[in-house]
């Protein structure tokens, strides 16, 4: 019996090792371990053994069964791995082929820039406001300290609708509309389309976009104006950006300034883009003129504020190196897909 068991074990071991497919394993399992299998057949003969031999042979038979089962499992694992390897090999594809194209959508560069600027100011506690493009003379000029016959009216060639209605030449009327509501303090930015009678060329468009900002509160200083805009410029153009404030004139701010940022092209060294200055003009700003506060119903003795305004096309064009403004309005897919 001992020999028989030994022989079965050896035979089975060889067979398991030779098994090529899962089916072979299943067959072998039946052949050796099944109800009609060879091992079972031997065990059936156990009755013929003496009482002394029986536990020894029994033990041995059990060991053999366990060995066979272990071999079976090992063979299964081996074959499964082989089969998986085979499958993976068969499934190989050319991964350098292009992916399946999906229509890709893009935001307009102006939207991207506007959203980014609004986000920066929202982070500093500013609300985003919007206002009418067809506007009253009062909001666009009068209430901003630009009375009739003021030269600034000529500088901003205005489209008139009739009577006291015009197309706003700046987003600044939203300063007045916001202040008029009487809700203080104010921290707001307002992006939007503005209109000036400029013929279309590479740097001019009769429709363009500005972003206005207004802060009114108690104890607002010119230092606060600088602080807010320095933070903004560094967020938008990078931590290394330097800014400079130059005195300027706007009828609705006093003191007024223009803010320059270090030239994006040369980083301040001076180049063709910045005409050697190292700086590029980014926005106009200033402390809200006391007259403007007063006209909008805010007591200039109690409150002060600052305002700023910038052209958004210029920011987008600088950001993306676009040299012709007309591209922004043409909507060629080859252009729009680049952003």
């Amino acid at each position, binding site marked *: 019996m001992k020999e028989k068991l030994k022989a079965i074990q050896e035979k089975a071991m060889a067979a398991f090792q030779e098994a090529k497919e899962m089916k072979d394993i299943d067959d072998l399992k039946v052949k050796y371990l099944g109800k009609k299998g060879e091992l079972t057949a031997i065990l059936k003969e156990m009755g013929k053994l003496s009482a002394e031999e029986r536990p020894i042979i029994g033990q041995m038979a059990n060991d053999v069964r366990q060995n066979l089962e272990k071999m079976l499992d090992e063979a299964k694992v081996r074959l499964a791995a082989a089969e998986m390897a085979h499958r993976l090999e068969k499934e190989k594809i050319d991964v350098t082929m292009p992916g399946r194209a999906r229509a890709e*959508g893009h935001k307009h560069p102006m939207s991207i820039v506007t959203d980014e600027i609004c986000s920066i100011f929202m982070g500093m506690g500013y609300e985003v406001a919007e206002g009418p493009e*067809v506007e009253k003379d009062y909001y666009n000029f009068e209430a901003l300290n630009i009375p009739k016959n003021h030269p600034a009216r000529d500088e901003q060639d205005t489209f008139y609708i009739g009577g006291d209605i015009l197309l706003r030449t700046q987003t600044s009327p939203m300063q007045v509309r916001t202040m008029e509501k009487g809700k203080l303090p104010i921290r707001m930015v307002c992006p939007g389309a503005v209109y000036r009678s400029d013929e279309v060329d590479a740097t001019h468009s009769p429709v363009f976009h500005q972003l206005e900002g207004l802060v009114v509160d108690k104890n607002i200083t010119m230092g606060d104006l600088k602080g807010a805009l320095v933070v903004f410029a560094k967020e938008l153009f990078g931590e290394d950006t330097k800014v*400079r404030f130059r005195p300027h004139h706007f009828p609705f701010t006093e003191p007024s300034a223009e803010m320059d940022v270090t030239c994006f092209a040369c980083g301040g060294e001076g180049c063709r883009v910045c005409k050697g200055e190292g700086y590029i003009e980014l926005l106009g700003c200033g402390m809200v003129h006391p007259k403007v506060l007063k006209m909008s119903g805010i007591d200039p003795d109690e409150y*002060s504020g600052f305002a700023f305004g910038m052209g958004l096309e210029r920011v987008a064009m600088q950001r993306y190196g676009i040299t012709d403004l007309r591209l922004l309005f043409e909507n060629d897919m080859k252009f729009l*897909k680049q952003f």
Partner: protein
Amino acid sequence: MDVPMSWLKEYAAVTAPLKDFMEDMTMSGSKVEGATSMAGELKNIVTGHIKAIEKHPHADKLVVCTIDVGTGKDLTIVTGAPNVRVGDYVPVALDNSVIAGGKEIHTGDLRGIASEGMLCSIEELGFDRHDFPEAPEYGIYIFPEPVELGKDVADVLDLKDDVVEYEITSNRPDCFSILGIAREAAATYKIPYCPPEITVKEEGEGKTADLISVEIKNPTLCPRYVARAIKNVKIAPSPRWMRKRLRAAGVRPINNIVDITNYVMLEMGQPMHAFDVDTIKDRHIIVRNANEGEKITTLDGVERQLDPSMLVISDPEKAVAIAGVMGGENSKISENAEAVLFESAVFDGPNIRITAKKVGLRTDASSKFEKGLDPNLAMDAVNRAAQLVEMLGCGEVVPGVVDCYPNKRETWELSYSPEWINKFLGTDISEEEMQQIFERIELKVDPVNHKVTVPTFRPDLEAQADLAEEVARFYGYDKIEPTLASGTPTVGKKTYAQNITTLVKETIVAEGLCEGMTYSFESPKVFDKLLIPADSKLRQTVTISNPLGEDFSVMRTVSINGILNSLSTNYNRRNESAGIFEVARVYLPKAVPVTELPDEIPTLTVGMYGKMDFYDIKGVVEHLMVVLGIGDRAEYTVETELPWMHPGRTAAVVIDGVNVGYVGELHPTVAKNYNIGTKVYLAVLNMEELIKASNMVNVYKPLPKYPAITRDIAMLVKEDVTVKQIADEIRKNGGEYLEEVKLFDVYQGEQIEKGYKSVAYSISFRSAERTLADADVADSMQAILDGLAKELGAQLRDK
């Protein structure tokens, strides 16, 4: 405003290098636009002496000169100029030199003789006979006196100067002058400001008042008119120093009298005019409005049509000048003028600006007047001119002035509080420093009472904030410490509408479309292109009264023109497909003509063409509705009323009974009108309505615990029965367990009778309490089938 540095330095002794100076002036408020260097391009041109002249052996018209340039080695230079003589001193452009216009000169062969440079004319030095009247009309410039040899000609002729260009803002008319800029420069560098001392000897005979009388008819448009007379005028070129300054400042020298008026205008900012006294009838000047239909021929020889809004200088008979713009030819100074009248007047700025625009003549004078000049300057200016006349010896100044000045402009006082200014600026500037700043810009300071007296040339200083600006700019904007505003905290946010708009844009982008940007005004012809009937309300527009042209004359009432133009651009540039959207406004007037602000309705417009059909764009809209939480409330009904859309392929989008827009195919005729040779699909949605309808508040619904029962049915219906009708009918009879009605097949073809279509639905039922049995839905299914048969004539198909 161009200011020559040499001229400026006479009144403010600036020592800073040019580059620093430009930066410093910009930072103190006089924005420098740039600088040019007069005669800066000239290189290697030196004084030379002609030692010998010989005929050129091979050319009749050329001569060969031997030139001594002080180096000990004579040069051989060939010239064709007829005017050179042995012994002349001339400008010599050496080998490797640069003459005016950047032209390089090298030694070169001239008909067989090596010419080691070039003799220069005055034009080749970049100037003309206006600058150097002694120069010949044609030929080489010859120095009138012997000069040291080998010296830089630019130095010898005093050609060099740096000219700085300033951008002057409209609030600072006083800075449109050399003195104004000098005052700013002096204040910037804390150095003395030294304007010229004006004294007139008045050595002429008689009295100006006996020679001329002045009458102002319109003192609003002419606040002041000052006149002085000069007798025995000797017209001649002005001296070189004056010519140089004028040229550097961009004004061409003419003769001493004209040059003096221009010189004073540049120096002081006060334009002046000179009349020939004899041409003024009765020697009586009247400042009045022009008459209807009046004409005048200006000094440039052009006849100008005037109107009563314009101001003229006239005598009792005729206009002799358009006030503040240009003199008349009829009063021009003649060669033998016996007496000249200097006019130094002030006119209303806006009126001059409008007049100059109307007659199409913006002169140096008008551009100064239009800023609004200080009337108190006029007297100084006329006296300065008289002083220069005496200095140049070009006439005798008649004693006295005629001064018509009905309402004198007085100085005014402003109070200031150093604490307030520091608080306003966020600075800590001492009272003394503020006081010094004020004094440097010629404010009289009363430090005890904290008051300043403002000179009349600074009308921009009206209140304390204006004084704060003066302090800030001379203290230095850059020295103000950036701070972050304290005070009441506020929350930075967008409105709900702005957030929904952002979401809409992001959703459409996710659908693979690109955002575009278009003009909001367009041509009224657009309405014809869009087949909009003549009586349509959409043709009532917000119309621009002064448009750039018809193409930009009306604010759009329909949103699609811009997008259609963009699609057309893409189509005609052979872009295979395009999908563009925009959220932009349409402008709907409340009434025409427009007397109140119109409604500006933000509108989503989506346009596309390419490999697609109606259901692609409808899919975009449906997806958007789901994102906005209104997927189940949005209905699509047949829309046939939009003239620019395909009547059989357009659906109105209806939410809770409100029409919010449409989706469909563009009318083929309209596509053709836009030169698009393929089908175009559009969706237009009113953003205001979408925002109103949107529902971003979701409440969780428990997941189903029990399985659903599903029944598939297929039916034959007439082809004009819509799937919406069928689905509505199924829902109507679906009973309490009906969960979902899903269309899964529509078929028309061989096995189907003509005029009919096969439609298949999957209908699911579910209970939240238990697993449904077949029997639970049997009645509902029967009701559904009966309803479909009865209402829509549907025949159930066997599967």
